[in-house]
């Protein structure tokens, strides 16, 4: 009887995992199939994925905080992207270049994104429960104003110093705006390391960190720590071992890694953002954000200023989005003046959802996994389409279609999941309550 119950429980557990991670599992298989069909050298695939990861991750991380605050996916990170673009336009106008150009762009985008975030937050407080659709429409609306300013007012009304920025008739900015040679990838170029070394470094750092934690616990001899097994340490060791074995045993794998260079400075920036988000989750502010996300009425009744907290959450998100867009643009080296921000929201959100996040729950792991899977599909699908149907257009179509499909499916699955959860919990909980 007991064992029967146990297998049943395991079955339920597996089923639940399958249901909860349906989107991620689906994408995992699509990616595997795509990689096989595309039939590309591993060095190409790993190189592309790695560069896209570094390019997009901060934008995806920018989405996390509003999810904690119960505001769902923040479509209005588009405004953050605009703030970054305005920053670049301003610094380009004063003919800056190199790291200084990026730094000034960021400095300009800070107040802008904070103001945008604040206003967005205020709007969201008026439309509680409809933040996502509001954010999406707000993005379209903001685009209108952005276009007005840069398409018509720049030149006649707003003086532009750098004539290269203007269209030939003197009205409106040219598109695309190119960063000069020194500015393009300025952050990336600070320090490049081949991927195999980078992974070794990260894994060894992780191992050292875990060892330090273990030692500290061991030295402090805390009561509650005694029962705990050093899982972190074991995982770190195992990961390092697996990676080393993979590198030694597979020539092509090692070659692919050596072939790929990763930008260390950008990596550190991403790490800083991750640390900030983790740190935030352990602070009073993070706790308040989570409390508001779980139940606004309860948070308010306990004296937490929910409206203010929600505004702060959106401000943080918008600021990170500005930083993310800046990293994105320096990586590419140019941006289409009037459309670069358009897909920032949708693509980032699709990536996060693919990583297994929902509109109620999202963490750094979801962001990284999502970025990997989503961008793998992004690279692979045109190639797979070309090989399969002799038509790259089809794959191109597929990846745009999939991006929106992911959002729709993930949202529908989320609704379905909550219905299922309600159904599952309904019965046993009732029985327990009235035993």
């Amino acid at each position: 009887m007991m064992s029967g119950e146990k297998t049943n429980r395991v079955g339920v557990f597996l089923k639940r995992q399958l249901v909860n991670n349906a989107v991620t599992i689906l994408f995992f298989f699509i990616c595997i199939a795509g990689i096989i069909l595309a039939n590309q050298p591993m060095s190409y695939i790993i190189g592309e994925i790695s560069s896209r990861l570094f390019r997009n991750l901060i934008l995806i991380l920018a989405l996390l905080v509003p999810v904690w605050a119960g505001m769902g996916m923040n479509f209005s990170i588009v405004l953050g992207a605009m703030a970054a673009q305005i920053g670049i336009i301003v610094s380009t106008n004063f003919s800056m270049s190199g790291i200084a150009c990026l730094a000034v762009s960021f400095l300009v985008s800070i107040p802008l994104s904070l103001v945008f975030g604040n206003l967005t937050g205020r709007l969201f407080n008026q439309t509680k429960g409809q933040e996502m659709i509001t954010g999406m429409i707000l993005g379209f609306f903001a685009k209108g104003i952005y276009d007005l300013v840069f398409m018509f007012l720049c030149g006649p009304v707003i003086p532009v110093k750098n004539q290269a920025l203007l269209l030939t008739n003197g009205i409106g900015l040219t598109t695309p705006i190119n960063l000069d040679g020194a500015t393009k990838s300025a952050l990336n170029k600070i320090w490049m390391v081949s991927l195999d070394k980078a992974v070794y470094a990260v894994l060894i750092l992780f191992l050292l960190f875990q060892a330090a934690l273990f030692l500290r616990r061991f030295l402090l001899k805390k009561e509650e720590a005694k029962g705990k097994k050093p899982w972190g340490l074991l995982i770190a060791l195992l990961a390092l071992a697996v990676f080393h074995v993979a590198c030694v045993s597979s020539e092509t794998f090692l070659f692919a890694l050596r072939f790929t260079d990763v930008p260390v400075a950008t990596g550190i920036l991403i790490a800083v953002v991750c640390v900030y988000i983790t740190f935030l989750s352990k602070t009073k502010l993070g706790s308040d954000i989570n409390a508001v996300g779980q139940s606004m009425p309860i948070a308010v009744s306990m004296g937490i200023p929910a409206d203010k907290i929600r505004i702060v959450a959106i401000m943080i998100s918008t600021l990170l989005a500005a930083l993310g867009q800046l990293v994105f643009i320096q990586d590419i080296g140019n941006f289409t003046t009037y459309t670069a921000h358009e897909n920032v929201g949708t693509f980032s959100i699709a990536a996060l959802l693919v990583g297994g996040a929902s509109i109620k729950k999202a963490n750094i792991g979801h962001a990284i996994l999502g970025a990997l899977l989503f961008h793998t599909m992004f690279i692979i699908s045109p190639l797979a389409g070309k090989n399969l149907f002799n038509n790259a257009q089809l794959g191109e179509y597929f990846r745009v279609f999939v991006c929106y499909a992911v959002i729709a499916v993930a949202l529908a699955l989320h609704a379905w999941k909550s219905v299922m959860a309600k159904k599952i919990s309904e019965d046993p909980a009732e029985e327990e309550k009235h035993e």
Partner: protein
Amino acid sequence: MEALLHFKNIKKSFSGNVVLDGVDFTIQPGQIVALAGENGAGKSTLMNILFGMDVISETGGFEGEIIFEGKTVNIQSPQDAMALGIGMVHQEFMLLPGFTVARNIKLNRENLIANPISRIAGKGYQLLDNPKIVREAAGALSRLGMEINPEVTVDKLPVGHMQFVEIAREIDKSNLKLLVLDEPTAVLTESEAERFLACIRKVADDGIAVIFISHRLDEVMSLADSVVILRDGQLVSDKKVEDTDKHQIAEQMVGRKLESESMVNVNRSFKEDIILEIEHLRVDMPGERSKDISLSVRRGEILGIGGLAGHGKTSISNGIFGMYPAKGKVSYNGQPLHFEKTGEALDKGMAFVSEDRKGVGLLLNESIALNMVYTDMKVNRNFLKKLGPFSLFDEKSAEEAVKEMIEELDIRCTGPKQLVGRLSGGNQQKVCMARALITKPEILFVSEPTRGIDIGAKQILLNYLVKINKEQGITIVMTSSELNELRTVCDRIAIIGSGTVQGILPPDAPNVDFALLMSGEKGGDK
């Protein structure tokens, strides 16, 4: 000894409707005062005043004084009340399901550690001192004598434990002087309730005064030091527990006698012809959950369903009409009814006047005519004209029926085309009734038919129910919070308590019997 709290001559009315009329009593430190009274007696209004809720100030404030520790206080918001040391445990849980017990207990009063970043970026970036939070939360729980792991998240906690977490949160506040408990045992099992009461005793022994709102008279008798009874906004009794007893409390709660001649349906006899049989019905309606309802409705009678709010009386009709998920067996004219399918009951010839008039009862932006015929159009396909594959609303044929109803029910309106949203509450209720009756139902469910309508309209509605019952032989199941209203028109009255049928009484049974059934005392121990 100086009283901790003195409600001094509190008066309050909502738009001319007096809900509190000179309530005046005191509470000593460490004393447990039970506050008893029917629904609408003014208990929650009194507590809203104590906590400075917005509803009070928005409706013109109140008269009288609240004297706390010898000083007249002006409480503008729940935060003011908290600052004075007044805490409240709500009927519904105010706990965050994803947070641990400890974090819930210390919510917004977390122990924090300053760090370099917080010195620059502001207090929001102070780190939570988790070990200390857990330690202090565990301390508060152990003061209550409870063994709950403070590091478990609340959603994994048995429902019975949640109430204790709420209390722990209150007593963890160092300045707590008065604790208000609003029907705290409603969701607890018997053994949990016992432990809970022991907890409260402990809290009071620490010198904290307690206001205890409960309908369970047994608990009141065993726990409280004194009992304050409100009825229709007036204080009818303020006695030490030793000087009173359960029956007296019950009688004083229900109070006013009803003249026997005003009960129209006493001692009518019926054949044992069961039109509707409800067996073990369980309806999951939030706030009005019922657990196990078994009832038989005889053909031609008016059956009343009464009971206190939150005990599940309104869930019965909502369950049968498929408005909320339900389980159990319902047979109608001997045939099983698939009530889980919304609309099934309507199709079978039953009709429902919902208590949620504006939510599900009416299309406020549509005309009286359309509102009245809408259900009939859907169920019996009347008032429609065919146009190829489409059926269109046939205004002409509807108009006659609607006019007849308007006259019959004396609905004050400019005509059938007037928008329902513009009507008064009483007239809206009549439209609801008309909508149900136009379908010519065999059995009619009416839920809270007189809620929020004036006395004149009330009487017309009640008379009309009696009339259609007599003349058209429509069986009526009427749910109402107003016991006297049920007694005026019903043949039998089923009292629902804690989600089950506590007993069925004739309308002329003594007040005490009704009161005892409502407060969860089975009729047996009389």
